[in-house]
C-alpha cells in the first residue's frame, strides 16, 4: 500500500519523550504514527498517545528485550523513524540507542532528536548522556541535539525550574516536528536525507535550531524573526538574532504552512537567512505547504557549527560505541558549550579534508551585512515587495559605495 511507503513513526522515549509526544499529539490531533516507550507506568497512563510500550522496571537491558518484538512490529513498514527523548536518565540513555539500532537493522532511516541535561543535574547524568549520544551518532542518520544548558542561558536567572524544563520540552517538540517535516517533504522544494546527514551527521557539532510561527499578512517576517531569536541561534555573549548562523556551511530551512504560501515568501526567507549566514552558506529549503489556508506558517532552521567530526559507519565497531571508548574531557561540565569533543583524534583522511576553517575567520568580511540598516523604520512593519525589504536604503541593497562624510 502506498500509505505504508510514507509511513512515519515518531517514538518518544522516557519521561521527556512522553511529554514531548503528548504536546505533539495535542498540537496536531490528526498526526498518526506516534509511539511512547517508558518504564514508568504512571507517566504512560497519563499520556494521550494511543500506542504505548511499557518497559518492565529494573535493568534496562532486560526491559529492552521485553519490548523488542513489539517495537519491531511498529517499525515494520515505516519508512523513517524519529526518536526523541531527553538523554541522561537511565531509561532513555539506554533505550534510545537500542531502539535506533533495532530500527536501523530493519533498513529504516532513523533520526534522533534529543535533549542534553542541564548542568545542575549532575556530572554523572551528563556523562551518561554523552555516552548515549556517541552511540546515537554512530547509528542514526541524523541527530539533533538540544543542549538544555544553552537554552537556560537565555532565560533570566530568576526563571522557575519548571519553566526551564518546559522551554526544553517545547524546543525538543519543535525540533522533532521539524525533523519529521523535513523527512516528509516531497516535490520540487525538498530536503533530502543526504542533506540531513550532512548537517546532523557530525558528532560533537553544536546543533543550531530555531523555529517560529506566525500568521497574517506579515507572517513570514514575523516567523523568521521569532526563529532567529531562538536561544540556540544566538551566539553566546551576543544579542543579535541569528548570530550563531554566521559562517555556517549549510542551513536547512523548512517552511510548513498553508497552501497559499507564495514563492516570494520562500525567497524572502532564504534571502533573510543568507543575509545573516553569509553568501557562502548553502541553504537547503524544504516546503510543506499542504495545510488549509489560515493555518499559521512555521519556519524552522537547523544548522550545525563547531568542530564536528564526521564518523563513517565503517569506522565504528560495536566495541567503540561502548561507554569506555568515550573519555569525557574535563571541560564538559557545561555540556552546552560543546556537546563533546570529537570521539577520536585518529579520524581518517576523509574527515580531515572536510574540516572547514573556523567560522569566525571565514566571515570577517561580511560583518557589514549583520548591521543591515533600516534606520527609523527598524521598529515598523517592513515594506516587502517581491521578497525585498524596501525599508533598507536602495543604495545599500544595490551595493553602491558612497564617499563618507568628512567631519569638520
Amino acid at each position: 500500500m502506498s500509505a505504508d511507503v510514507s509511513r512515519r513513526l515518531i517514538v518518544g522515549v522516557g519521561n521527556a519523550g512522553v511529554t514531548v509526544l503528548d504536546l505533539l499529539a495535542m498540537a496536531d490531533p490528526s498526526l498518526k504514527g506516534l509511539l511512547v516507550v517508558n518504564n514508568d507506568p504512571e507517566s504512560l497512563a497519563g499520556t494521550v498517545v494511543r500506542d504505548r510500550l511499557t518497559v518492565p522496571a529494573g535493568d534496562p537491558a532486560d526491559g529492552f528485550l521485553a519490548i523488542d518484538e513489539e517495537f519491531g512490529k511498529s517499525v515494520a513498514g515505516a519508512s523513517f523513524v524519529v526518536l526523541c527523548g531527553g538523554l541522561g536518565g537511565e531509561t532513555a540513555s539506554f533505550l534510545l540507542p537500542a531502539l535506533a539500532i533495532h530500527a536501523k537493522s530493519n533498513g529504516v532511516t532513523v533520526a534522533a532528536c534529543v535533549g542534553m541535561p542541564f548542568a545542575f543535574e549532575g556530572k554523572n547524568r551528563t556523562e551518561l548522556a554523552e555516552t548515549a549520544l556517541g552511540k546515537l551518532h554512530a547509528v542514526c542518520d541524523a541527530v539533533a541535539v538540544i543542549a538544555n544548558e544553552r537554552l537556560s542561558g537565555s532565560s533570566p536567572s530568576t526563571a522557575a525550574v519548571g519553566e526551564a524544563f518546559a522551554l526544553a520540552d517545547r524546543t525538543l517538540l519543535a525540533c522533532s516536528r521539524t525533523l519529521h517535516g523535513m523527512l516528509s517533504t516531497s516535490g520540487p522544494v525538498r530536503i533530502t536525507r543526504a542533506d540531513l546527514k550532512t548537517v546532523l551527521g557530525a558528532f560533537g557539532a553544536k546543533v543550531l535550531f530555531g523555529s517560529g510561527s506566525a500568521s497574517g499578512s506579515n507572517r513570514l517576517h514575523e516567523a523568521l524573526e521569532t526563529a532567529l531569536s531562538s536561544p540556540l541561534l544566538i551566539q553566546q555573549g551576543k544579542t543579535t538574532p541569528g548570530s550563531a548562523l554566521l559562517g555556517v556551511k549549510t542551513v536547512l530551512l523548512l517552511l510548513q504552512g498553508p497552501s497559499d504560501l507564495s514563492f516570494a515568501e520562500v525567497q524572502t526567507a532564504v534571502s533573510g537567512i543568507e543575509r545573516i549566514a553569509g553568501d557562502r552558506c548553502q541553504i537547503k529549503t524544504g516546503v510543506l505547504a499542504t495545510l488549509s489556508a489560515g493555518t499559521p506558517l512555521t519556519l524552522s532552521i537547523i544548522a550545525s557549527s563547531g568542530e564536528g567530526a564526521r564518523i563513517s559507519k565503517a569506522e565504528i565497531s560495536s566495541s567503540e560505541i561502548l561507554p569506555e571508548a568515550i573519555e569525557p574531557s574535563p571541560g564538559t561540565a557545561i555540556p552546552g558549550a560543546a556537546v563533546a569533543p570529537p570521539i577520536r583524534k585518529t579520524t581518517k583522511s576523509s574527515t580531515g579534508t572536510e574540516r572547514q576553517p573556523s567560522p569566525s575567520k571565514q566571515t570577517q568580511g561580511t560583518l557589514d551585512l549583520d548591521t543591515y540598516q533600516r534606520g527609523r523604520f527598524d521598529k515598523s512593519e517592513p515594506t516587502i515587495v517581491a521578497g525585498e525589504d524596501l525599508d533598507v536604503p536602495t543604495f545599500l541593497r544595490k551595493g553602491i559605495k558612497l564617499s563618507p562624510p568628512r567631519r569638520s
Partner: protein
Amino acid sequence: MSSDQIFVGLEIGTTKICVVVAEGRSEDQISILGVGETPSRGIRKGEIVDMATAAECVREAILDAEEKTNVEIGNVWVAISGGHLRSLNNRGIHVLPHPRQIEQEDLDQVQTNAKEIAIPPQNIFLHTILQSYHLDGNRNVIDPLESEGMQLEADFHIVHGMKTRIHNTLRCVESLKLEIEDVVLGSLASAQVVVTQHQKDLGVLVIDIGGGTTDYLIYQDGAVRHSGVLALGGDHITNDISVGLKLPIARAEALKIQEGTSTDPTESHGGVITVKNDPGFLGCEIDRRSLETIIHCRVREIFELIRDDISRNAGDLLGLLGAGVVVTGGTARLPGIAETASDVLDQTVQITTARNVGGPLQTFENPQYSTAIGLTKYARLVTRDLRPVSLMDRISKGFGGLFGRRER
C-alpha cells in the same frame, strides 16, 4: 450659508495632517475657504501607529482650520492610504428574466454581482468604481438606464483593504466627535483635482508621492483601470540620507529639502555641501554626488516598482497613455523628480498641483494639498443636487459608501 454646500477634506498623512474646507460652487466647482494643518505624529507609512497622539494631531488640524475659515466642522471626508490596500478589476453580470428596460435596481444588482469575488477574510471593500457597461454584447455603453436589454454586464475597479486598519483611521476621527461622510482612496481624491476629464479620457497615470506612501491610479477612456499603494515615500529618502551620510533624521530631512535633487548622479556637477555645527552634532562636509546617488536610487526604484506593477497587472497600458504621467504629493517638490520619472516610465511627466479650484493661491499651488483638496472636489461630485446623467455621475454612484456597507 447652507451647511451642505461646505465640504471638509481630511488627510491624515505621514508628514502632516491637512484639513481643507471648501465651498461648493456651480458647475461642480469648488472654492477653498481655508486650510488647517499640523505636523503628524503617531503615523507611519500612512497608517496610525499611535492612536491617542494621532487623534490629538487631527484635533489640532481641525481647530486650525476652524479658526482660519470660521466654519464649524462637523462632517468630514477622509482619505485613506497604506500598503495594505489592494485592487483588482472584475466584471459583474446580471441577466434579466426577459428583455425589458434597464432600471436603477439592475445597475445596483450588477454592482453587487461584481463584488462576488474572493478577497481575504480580513479585508473589506473600499471602492467599487465603474469602468463601463455592456448591454447584450454592445460594448462600452455609457448609460444603459432606460435602454432595453436582457444581459447587463459591467466592469468595475475594486479596491479593498484590511478592515482593522481602515477602522483605525475611522475610530481616530470618530473619537473627535466628527462625522465621517465617506472614506476615499487617497489617489482617487488627488486625481479629482490634478487631472482634467479630458486627460482621463486620453489616459493618464496619477502618482501621488507623499511622506510615507506612494499612491497611484491609472485612467484610460475616462475610467480607473488600475490603482496601487506602495508604502514608500519621502520618509524613505530622508532615512536613506540619514543612514548613508550618518546624519540625524532632522538634519537629513533639512538636507533633502534644501539640497536634495533626484538628478542622475552621473550628470552631477559634484562639489561639497557643508552641514553646520549644532549642539550635540559635529558639522561635516558631504560629497554632493553621494547625496544625489542616495536620492536618485530611491526615487528611481519607486518609479520602477510602479512601472513593474502596472505592466504586471494592466499589461502595456503605460505605453498607451495619451496624457502621460502626472506627479503630485509633497515629494513631487523634489527637483529633478520629473526627469527621473520620465526616464523610468518612458512618458511625458508633469508635476501638478490642484487645478480648477478657486481660493487662496498658495494652497493649491502646493502639491502637498492635492489629496485634501481632491477630497472636497470628490465630495462635491458625489453629493451634488443636480444629477445630470453622465458617465461621471455613474462613476460617482459606483463609489460605495463604506458606512452603508458596514451596516449591512
